[in-house]
């Protein structure tokens, strides 16, 4: 038996890309979200409006950006402005999707990209919020992209850099965050997860190819709920892989 004909980065990109709807707005950060947005535009969502934090809106993503503010993020864009304009648009409710990542995530989708260990004398100093907190606070639906293991899926994050559902239902609104916003999906190499509508806790919606429910539970450091029917996610198609490898990331900068 041979292994899959794709690597886990390609799997994450394809899974994230499939969540994008045509015509939606999406806040795109560096790395996998850029590739996912480009793939979505070439598949089911040609009119996906890519919004980049430092000012590019509606770029034609012909070439893969290597950084969040570089010229490809506003190549033939509809507008090239600045960070205040873009994040204020999110604050007014214009941005549907936001992508997030992190070193740790908990059952409520709270994310840590700041410190492991004590804040003032950390064991590991990570980059900090960047735009993460703004995306997690202000976009309607956020999608976290993570490798799935117990070091990352933890009972309690060391630092809540970016708010998920905080301590549970109603906590975001009580903190003053905009009504109706919050975590929507977590895409991992083992599964696609959502959040239970009543408890706001993470739940398994689908298994990635080759993964088992037991494997997902074993690699998660908190109790997961499981949807009534767990779907089987389709592997990356030949077409998706061809576009990724031959068109989007020919130089293998990311994949």
């Amino acid at each position, binding site marked *: 038996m041979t292994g899959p004909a794709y690597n886990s980065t390609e799997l994450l990109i394809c899974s994230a890309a499939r969540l994008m709807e045509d015509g939606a707005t999406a806040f795109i950060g560096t790395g996998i979200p850029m590739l996912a947005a480009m793939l979505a535009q070439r598949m089911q969502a040609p009119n996906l409006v890519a919004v980049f934090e430092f000012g590019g809106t509606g770029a034609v993503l012909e070439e893969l950006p290597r950084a969040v503010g570089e010229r490809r993020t506003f190549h033939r864009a509809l507008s090239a402005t600045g960070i205040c304009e873009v994040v204020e648009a999110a604050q007014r409710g214009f941005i549907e999707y936001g992508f997030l990542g992190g070193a740790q995530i908990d059952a409520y989708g709270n994310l840590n990209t700041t410190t492991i260990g004590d804040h003032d004398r950390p064991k590991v100093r990570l980059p900090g*919020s960047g735009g993460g907190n703004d995306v997690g606070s202000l976009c309607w639906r956020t999608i976290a992209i993570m490798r799935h293991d117990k070091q990352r899926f933890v009972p309690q994050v060391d630092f809540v850099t970016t*708010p998920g559902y905080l301590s549970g239902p109603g906590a975001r609104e009580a903190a003053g965050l905009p009504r109706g916003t919050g975590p929507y999906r977590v895409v991992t190499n083992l599964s696609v997860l959502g959040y239970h509508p009543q408890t706001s806790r993470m739940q398994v919606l689908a298994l990635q190819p080759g993964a088992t429910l037991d494997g997902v539970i074993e690699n998660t450091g908190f109790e997961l709920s499981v949807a009534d029917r767990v779907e089987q996610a389709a592997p990356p198609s030949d077409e998706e892989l061809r576009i990724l490898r031959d068109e989007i990331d020919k130089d293998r900068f990311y994949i």
Partner: protein
Amino acid sequence: MEILDSGVGPMLQPPDLDSLRELNRRKPKTLIDKRMSEAEAITRFLHDGDYIGTELYGTVRCPMSLVSEIIRQGRKNLRVAGQGVLELDMLIGAGAVQAMDLTYMGLEVYGVSNCLRREVESGRLSPVVEWSNAGMAWRFKAAAMGVPFLPVRSMLGSDTLKYSSAKVVRDPFTGQPVCLLPALILDVGLIHVHRADIHGNAQVDGITGFCVEMARASKRLIISTERIVPTDEIRAHPDRTIIPYYLVDAVVEAPFGSHPGEMAYDYERDEDQIREWVEASKTPETTRAYLDKYIQSVKDHAAYRQRIGEARLKALADAVPTAGGRRS
């Protein structure tokens, strides 16, 4: 207003709006020639212990020639508005930074910053006060508006807020909790632009990041520019002037001033040079060796360009596709 929550982070640079007004009143409003070298600009306007900020996003439009001069002159105990990649990494690697308001310090696709990890995990760089990217930009915006704070709906409920110096209050109009971000006024702002005249009227091509806000939030503002252009060229397109002369204290001509970062429409970033820094930054010894080779042992930006090689720089400029267009 009822205060519901307060961040525990110290206010590294308490805003003094009346002093800013008085300073701005004294700034020359006539069109004077503000050209000078990096060395003169840093000597005159940037001192040990200052609170400084650089305006850029990722590796784009980095004021590298100015930052190199800060390192060359051995400035110390700087407090920094921390949003950056290469330039901040080198300042931290050089041991020039004492404390930070931090939103993002990393190497983007190349991962976490080795210099930040070393300095913060050892406790040498402290305190670190947390913010979000927009949080920092909005703090500049408050200062740019000349008001003490701005209410926003980001950062709420998070440890980012807890370890900031923001406050959560009950909005006196709606009763909802809202985050108040204190204005951030820089002692010195450093911004690299595409073109400016000798008076400091500056124009940027492509996205503007947070330079509009930061320029107006700086007590002293040093502009480096790819090109000095005649004022008539500025006057031909006044709608493009996002930093007017009266904000500016120094104009430094610095072709390839963002290298190894990029400049939209002018030149691409130098991937090999960035990788060289990323590798070098992994240990204190190799960090010092890099800073010595490319900063300490070269006398100025012109000498740096020679060290990198004009042919290599030209190749970075030639690599910019003409499609996509630029407005001159």
